[in-house]
């Protein structure tokens, strides 16, 4: 009896793991890793005339990446994504902080309100911005009535940032909220008991402890902002393109899959670096606290 016990338990455990992890893991392998491997393999081949690749090895897809034309697009996108992330943090932190302090019943209502926009189709919400901002739109009609307009609002970098911020602000608020909400109130009380003013308590206790949430929120906002191509097209009027548009165009318009793959790979590389930085910073913040 006792001799057969441990192996059976081990097999059961393994079977249990297979059942619980297997489907998700299998799904990711087939639909994430395989396409990723394809993208990776495309980078070293020549483009086919109508999409696809010709299996002749070449390095020119990578050298093209160094062209200032494309580097400008990449830097421009990073700039807009950074601005969006910082604004989201500035707006999101106080919001998350206040929600965390609300009574339980109101917390739920506030959190539902934060995710409410996700219930409506993303494109429709973006089109609403066009209606709002265009030169014959609601905002400009108001400004004109006041004798101040029309002001060029739509098809500017500002409109792109506004659209990105609007789309991804909830992704900043939610991790911030969960980080702030989790903080042990006794730490803040201790800080107050030891004579710290509220501002000091915030800077020395609350903020450092919520830093992992800050970093998660920043990554959540930065990543989709960098890759977005719908908002620059609709709110930027196609006059400013971001790296997401460039990648989309390589696949759909230019039919240059290899170069599109190189661009995609470059973005993935930036994001992986960012995730490592985030993990490192979060661990450091955890250790210091």
């Amino acid at each position, binding site marked *: 009896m006792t001799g057969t016990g441990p192996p059976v338990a081990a097999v059961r455990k393994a079977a249990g793991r297979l059942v619980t992890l297997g489907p998700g893991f299998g799904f990711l392998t087939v639909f994430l890793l395989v*396409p990723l491997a*394809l*993208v990776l393999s495309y980078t070293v081949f020549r483009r*086919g*005339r*109508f*999409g*696809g*690749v*010709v299996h002749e090895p070449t390095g020119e897809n990578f050298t093209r990446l160094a062209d200032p*034309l*494309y580097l*400008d*697009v990449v830097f*421009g996108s990073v700039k807009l994504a950074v601005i969006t992330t910082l604004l989201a943090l500035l707006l999101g932190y106080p919001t998350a902080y206040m929600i965390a302090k609300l009574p339980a019943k109101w917390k739920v209502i506030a959190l539902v309100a934060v995710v409410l926009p996700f219930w409506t189709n*993303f*494109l429709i919400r973006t089109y609403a911005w066009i209606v709002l901002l*265009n*030169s*014959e739109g609601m905002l400009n009609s108001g400004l004109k009535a006041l004798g101040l307009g029309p002001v*060029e609002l739509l*098809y500017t970098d500002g409109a792109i940032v506004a659209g990105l911020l609007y789309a991804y602000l909830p992704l900043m608020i939610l991790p911030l909220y969960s980080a702030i909400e989790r903080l042990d109130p006794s730490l803040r009380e201790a800080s107050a008991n030891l004579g710290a003013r509220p501002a000091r308590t915030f800077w020395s206790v609350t903020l450092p402890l919520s830093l992992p949430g800050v970093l998660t929120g920043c990554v959540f906002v930065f990543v989709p902002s960098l890759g977005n*191509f*719908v908002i620059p*097209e*609709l709110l930027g*009027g*196609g*006059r*400013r*393109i971001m790296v997401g*548009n*460039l990648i*989309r*165009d390589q*696949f*759909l*318009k*230019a*039919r*240059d899959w290899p170069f599109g793959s190189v661009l995609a790979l470059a973005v993935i590389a930036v994001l992986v670096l960012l995730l490592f930085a985030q993990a490192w910073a979060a661990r450091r913040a955890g250790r210091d606290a």
Partner: protein
Amino acid sequence: MTRRAPVAVASACLAFTLTACGGASTTDSAPATLDANADLSKQSLTISIWDGYSPKDLPERVKAKLGFDTKVAIHDTNETIMAKLTAGGDSGIDVAFVSGQYAQALNAQGLLEPLHADLIPNLKNLFPEAAQLAYDKGNTFSVPYTWGTTGLCYRSDLVKTPPTSWSDLLNPPAELKKKITMMTTERWLALPALKLLGASVNTTDQAVLDKAKQMLLKVKPDLLAYDDTTFGDRLKSGEAAMAEAWDGWCPTAEKNIKFVVPSEGSDLWADTMVILKSSRNKEAAHAFINYILDPEIHGWVAQNILYKIPNKVAMDALDPKLLESYPALAQPPAELLKGESLIDLGEASTMYTRLSTEVSAAQ
């Protein structure tokens, strides 16, 4: 060329089909021997077409008239269908709707079945000009489904002087700054500049394309947006006052909205029907094309999509009121033929891709 589906919707919903691509298989170019009396009910057809580009009940109508089942696949751009058709092997598609220059490219790769004119008696309904299109003179491998040109769509109440030249688009007067849209699809992005330079829309001269690029970069800050799909709405709202537009897309039924082909000339584009060599239902495919050329079906396109069709019988049967509301529809074929036919440029087409990327990426 994109069709009626807004480009953003199409791209947002898009899933990349990362099929491994082999080279085009070299097939025997000899036409198949077709049986004019084949039992069509034993065949079935898969066609690929732009969304909303044919009557919704077309499969039912084909079934009733010809007795075989038709499956309709949708493609959103020429590029998507080309990727499918050139991926190697049997795409499963019998009849594809593609623009003329793409039909030419497919034929050059040996992927198309030469048409058996005797199986398409309705070809007699077409204007004689329909057989004079540069990408396929004599309709040997393609039949035009729609045709048209590119020009300026504008608000007569918002422009001081009606535009007559591509220069009015590329060197806009002060009052039109930020009130103009241009197309972004590569060949049409370059077209206004090429025509203004007196060059061919099919030029592969890098020096000419460089000059065109300078002109396009110069006008970029003055544009409201690049827009292939929604410029009609922008003109209606007054957000835009002038747009580079395909004739069928200019909402001339609206008060104050007019369409003009600039004096330097323009292009002549055509969307065509082709039969794939890989099709195992070639008799049905010919019968299908013949049925499309029936004035009733072909006329549907002019009435509902507002594109010109190369079908004389169907055009003659149109309600004169429709032609009055949409004067561009009434443009006679001889006039249309003055436009330069867009042809496939082979490997040189990358020059246009590069130009369009450079213009759109410039800040």
